[in-house]
């Protein structure tokens, strides 16, 4: 599984990354976590506000820090 955190390094983006790392650790899923700061790549997902979270190419949330329960739901398949 590939989890991408889209954002240019703001506090909400960093918080999202922290939560994702924690969710991955707690659920034990095999995932690659990637921080995407490249503007072109972010726009490529159609995301206009960050932070955003993408799981295996699917945009799950944009413009806010997701909660832990939602992150766990998205990464459990």
């Amino acid at each position, binding site marked *: 599984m590939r989890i991408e955190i889209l954002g*240019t390094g703001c506090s909400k983006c960093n918080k999202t990354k922290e939560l994702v790392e924690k969710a991955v650790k707690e659920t034990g899923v095999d995932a690659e976590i990637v921080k995407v700061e490249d*503007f072109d790549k972010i726009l490529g*997902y*159609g995301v*206009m*506000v960050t932070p955003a979270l993408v799981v295996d190419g699917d945009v799950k*949330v*944009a*413009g806010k820090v997701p909660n832990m329960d939602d992150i766990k739901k998205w990464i459990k398949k």
Partner: protein
Amino acid sequence: MPEETKCACGSANVAIFPCVGAANVGQLSNRIAIELEKQGIGNLMCTAGIGARAPGLMKSAEASDRIIAIDGCPVNCASKTLELAGFRVDRQIVISELGIKKSKDRDLKDQEIADTLGKVMEILQYE
């Protein structure tokens, strides 16, 4: 498209959706939306992306605290597109109701853009 993706940190998210229709008023809706973003009123977003249910656009719209639809004429395509996708439009502006006659002349005049922007800013100011 904005020059960069806006970070949602610390400020209210306002999304601006112009109809970008083929008539002069539709093209004007886009110019006005661009100017509103430049003035920090909100983020210009792709109305067509909402029609297409593009996930990134849908999620970006969902994250907005307030949605402004700029329609060129009373056909209300931008507003209807948003409503059909399940979004509530907080403020609708119809360009043809601001003294601009709908036509197929898409060569927008600078003065026309400036005048319309002034009227739109006035409307938004009193909210």
